[in-house]
């Protein structure tokens, strides 16, 4: 703000798309800012309403919730009964465990395997690197969802249907992760590695003790993105996990019908429970997640 005054030649404010903490004047700029602020706040609230409404409904009793939106909004007797019904009966613990195991194991495997491949592509000269690069580019264009039919058949042949591996294995070859790692490794100065090489360290040692420790931000990003992606996946687990004991949270909620009646509060509590770990993750790793999504979006 202070910057604008010492620049007398400026006729109008730098505005609109200019970044924050920037040049602004007191007249039209301020009016624009106020309008912008109001518009933004209104839309932000609109965007928050569905989630908050679901949360509110989940804290209402089923009887009131059945009466409709106005009754839910007017109700001031919050209850945790719907959540209790999930935790006392039903499969929610099984589902959480399935989601947690598949998400964590896939993320760990993806991070290691993708970063190793990216390291080879970034640092090692070898015959066939062109072919590998070509396959990777090809892989990024293959829409994995379209492969649901052959993957089902393959998992069936391997007797892996209805195991966690049927969800984990097909999601490990995330080609995008190789790209993210490779572009990060390309940016790491080679001098650091060369020093280690001169000391006699092998490639594995360099990768493990020099490159990976320097790559914590990108490791975090890929881990979180993979975790979120696997947690949220519906299509694959929907068809490879058909036993309610082994289902992930989204699949369980989507396929297993609750007991009789329109238990709206219970249903919304389920929606909240499926999302809860991710919301917590977001609140902790907000910046990393946004950066990771941006990075993968720009490359994918």
């Amino acid at each position: 703000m202070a910057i604008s005054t010492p620049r007398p030649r400026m006729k109008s404010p730098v505005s609109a798309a200019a970044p924050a903490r920037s040049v602004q004047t007191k007249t039209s700029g301020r009016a624009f800012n106020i309008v912008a602020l109001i518009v933004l706040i209104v839309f932000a609230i609109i965007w928050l309403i569905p989630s908050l409404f679901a949360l509110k409904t989940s804290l209402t009793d089923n009887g009131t919730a059945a009466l409709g939106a106005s009754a839910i909004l007017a109700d001031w007797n919050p209850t945790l009964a719907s959540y209790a019904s999930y935790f006392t009966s039903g499969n929610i613990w099984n589902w959480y465990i399935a989601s947690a195991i598949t998400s964590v194991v896939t993320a760990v495997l993806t991070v290691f395997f993708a970063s190793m491949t990216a390291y080879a592509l970034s640092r090692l000269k070898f015959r066939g690197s062109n072919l590998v690069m070509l396959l990777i580019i090809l892989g990024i264009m293959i829409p994995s969802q379209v492969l649901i039919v052959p993957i089902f058949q393959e998992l069936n042949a391997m007797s892996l249907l209805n195991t966690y591996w049927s969800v984990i294995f097909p999601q490990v070859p995330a080609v995008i992760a190789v790209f993210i790692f490779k572009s990060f490794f390309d940016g790491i100065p080679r001098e650091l590695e060369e020093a280690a090489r001169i000391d006699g360290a092998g490639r594995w040692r360099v990768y493990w003790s020099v490159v990976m420790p320097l790559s914590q931000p990108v490791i975090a990003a890929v881990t979180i993105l993979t975790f979120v992606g696997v947690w949220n996946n519906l299509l694959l687990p929907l068809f490879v996990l058909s036993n309610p004991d082994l289902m992930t949270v989204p699949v369980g909620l989507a396929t297993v019908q609750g007991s009789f009646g329109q238990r709206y509060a219970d249903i919304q509590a389920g929606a909240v429970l499926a999302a809860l770990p991710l919301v917590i993750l977001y609140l902790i790793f907000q910046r990393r997640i946004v950066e990771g999504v941006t990075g993968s979006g720009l490359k994918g």
Partner: protein
Amino acid sequence: MAMSDRAMTRRGFLAAGLGAAAVPLLAGCSSNLGNTVASGLFGARLPSETLVFWNLFGGGDGSRMETMEAGYRKKYGPNSLQATTFAWGNPYYTKVTLATVGNKPPDVAISHLTRAKPLWSGGLLEPITADDLSSVGLSPADFSPAPWKEQRTDGKNIAVPLDTHPIVMFFNTDVCRKAGLVDSDGKLKALDDMDAFESALAAISKVTGGVALTIPNVGGETATPWRVFWTFYNQNKAATPFLSDNGSKLTVDEDVFAKVNERLQSWVKKGWVNKALDYATAESYMFTGKSGLYLEGEWEITTAQSVKGLKFGMVPIPNLYDQPAAQADSHTFVLPRKDRTPQERHQAMLFIRSMLDQSMTWAKGGHIPAFQRVANSAAYKALEPQADYASAAKHAVYDDPAWYGGSGSTFEGIVGAELGLIQQLASTPQAAMQSIKDQLSVYLNTPSPL
């Protein structure tokens, strides 16, 4: 130095990977969770002391099934049963199929009789032997003849019928009384020929000032038009199967098809039958007296009984042509293909027996019990209005066996949609027939994948 470093980090890496998988494993070891995790990781069998039962019942049926499940638990212990309900129709049968293919099916599953046949031809069901039945004190004579005969396939028993659920005619007592169709004890007069039925429609139409009979046919409703058509079609002596050879031949009698549908269109044109109503609205017409009659499966009894102040009755759909008939299906118990110990197999049969014994609870939801000890009991015969339409089970006509057929199937979807268009007067019977042929040609010409 370098060596120990490397060992450290590698161990760290392994620990991280294993730890992630092991934490929930350890946490769950003391309980059933441990078994589940073992099953998920190593494909181990799920614990067998609990019987796993899948069904597709929502609404009133769902709550009555829960009551019956509670009855089983009371007898065999609180942890003796794990029951899961899936979304009705194709999603459910897809789950049953994929779970069986993927080697983790339930011990017992509900299946419509018409859907049990494709499951059987896909090799997904185990036959139920005479020994199985006698081990829990059952014999073929314990079941109503129609569903029992219908389930026999390739000389084997493929399913144990729980009920028969035909389409019936609901009537609004007040409206029909004003139209002079109800006798002194509240029963609907017999309307078993075309003239009597049409004059009744005319009379009701006068009372309501609008339609006399409602049949839902829009809003995605394809099953009811099919049920109504299949009922009237089979009341004709000349009726042939719609599909033959497990769905590879279209053998419908087109003259009867045209005759039945032209008659329906004439009712619509006279204003006796609605042109386009969805399921809930068509039903509410009868509830609120905007129409006098309503054609739907008997399960709607639950909804009708919940309407305050409504006086209604239920009868078999009148015989308007040569012979009585009512489209129907049966809920049955099937045993999906699975490695079982003799004890597990016996327990599955005990479960089925326990459900059959509670058929009275089930009958309150409108379904006609297949278990004769209940169907012939004084208690069932005293149940009103169930007793008034129980005879419909004798004339039950099931959908033709086809790998894409049965309740809620692709076949019903295609044909029912065209029948709905006929009722809307948006298509002629001839044009609809042509469209049915076009759409079914893919399935007729495709070898069955089963």
